[in-house]
């Protein structure tokens, strides 16, 4: 018999999606949730050491073994995975939806200032977005949100681990070394356009 840690490592290795603690517990039903959690923690620590070719990422509410990003140049030569390329408009639209979801197409377009139907469709096809339902306002427009695949693609544990817009701005400001003084702008209420 091998250890629980070994079993968890095997599971993480063969699973083709991130495994959540709930999923691990239902697979390892005879084990204590606390023990499973501890095994994951041990693995996280082990994979965190040194510069191994594999690391244990916390994504989409679970854990997934991934290749070390520093080795990406070599891995691309294997030519196996479809490279993800996002256009600027896709990224812009994704950012808006990630921060403002649930959101309608009209709201996205108000923020971007351009028609966004085509981009939304592309992002739906790439499974980065989900249709969450319809908004309870006249016309019942569709509402969109980001998907689990979005979290996986962008290496995010959950939506809350996105930097806040303020943090993003501070980072950008520091990057550009051009501190813009902040003026109070009242009433940035974009959603009142229905």
């Amino acid at each position, binding site marked *: 018999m091998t250890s629980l840690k070994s079993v968890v490592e095997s599971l993480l*290795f*063969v699973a*083709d999606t991130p495994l959540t603690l709930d999923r691990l517990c239902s697979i390892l039903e005879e084990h204590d949730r606390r023990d499973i959690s501890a095994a994951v923690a041990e693995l996280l620590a082990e994979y965190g050491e040194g510069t191994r070719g594999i690391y244990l*990422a916390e994504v989409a509410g679970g854990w*997934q*073994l*991934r*290749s*070390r*990003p520093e080795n*990406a140049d070599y*891995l691309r030569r294997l030519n*196996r*995975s*479809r*490279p*993800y*390329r*996002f*256009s*600027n*408009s896709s*990224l*812009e639209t*994704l*950012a*808006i939806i*990630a*921060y403002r979801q649930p959101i309608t197409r009209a709201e996205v377009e*108000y*923020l*971007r*200032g*351009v*028609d966004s139907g085509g981009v939304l469709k592309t992002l*739906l*096809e790439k*499974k980065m*977005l*989900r*249709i969450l339902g319809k908004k309870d306002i006249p016309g*019942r427009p569709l509402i969109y949100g980001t*998907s689990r695949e979005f979290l*996986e*693609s*962008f*290496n*995010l544990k959950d939506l809350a681990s996105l*930097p806040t*817009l303020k943090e*993003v*701005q501070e*980072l*950008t400001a520091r990057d550009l070394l051009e501190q*813009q003084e902040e*003026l109070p*702008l009242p*009433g*940035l209420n*974009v959603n009142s356009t229905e």
Partner: protein
Amino acid sequence: MTVASPADIILFPDSYQTVYTIRTEAFEGPFDLLLHLIKKNEVDIYNIPIAAITRQYLDYLDVMQELNLDIAGDFLVMASTLIQIKSRMLLPLPPDEEIGEEDLEDPRAELVRRLLEYQKYREAAVSLAQRELLGRDTFVRDFAAPELAEIEPEQERLEVELFELIEAFRRVLATVPEQTFHEVGAEGLSIADRINELLLLLQGTDAAVFENLFIGSATREQVIITFLAILELCRLNMVRLAQARSFGSILVIPTFLDAAAEAVTEEDLDRDFA
């Protein structure tokens, strides 16, 4: 004044291909172009020299036109907004007693708010792109492990997105002649919902009082939908309407899946699944 923009670089394209790509890559939209002009001119976003910026903006649209590029409607809409702001700034304020609240606000305020808001998301987009992207920076084993290949799943979890369902329906419709189809709107689907609910309600009962089926239909629209659903059920012969005596209650009698005569038999299933 010249327009220095990404499009300039491509004014002398070395191939047709290059010309084709600028349309999508020059500017994401009017906000993007405006932010570019503001930055290039090193002006304060809170105090935009609207006349100069408008002129440069229109110059850019001219360049696009000279290049025979399609100018998206959104760019033209912004042009008209800019012109409007410019003219409002030239107008003298109305006499004191007629000053409304909107007259007091800087005509540029709304535009500035939207530009700043847009800028935030554009920066957020950049920070997204800087993350360790799956398929670009990091890779996973997104294939079935060979050691598991021979294991048959015992129980499957359904995993499908609404969008895929719609796309499937669209594929079907694409192959069907148009007039055989009409778009089913929310109303048609509400009737289908109601039919499903009524069937559940009627299951296992001998009959239901007609009026009682309207309990819970709060709005006029819901009443109509319930009524249409009952009619549809009659048409499909899944219910029968009967009245015990004149002016008595109308009874809705389920005739579907009647245990004695009408149960779904093996034979029925065989016929459909043969």
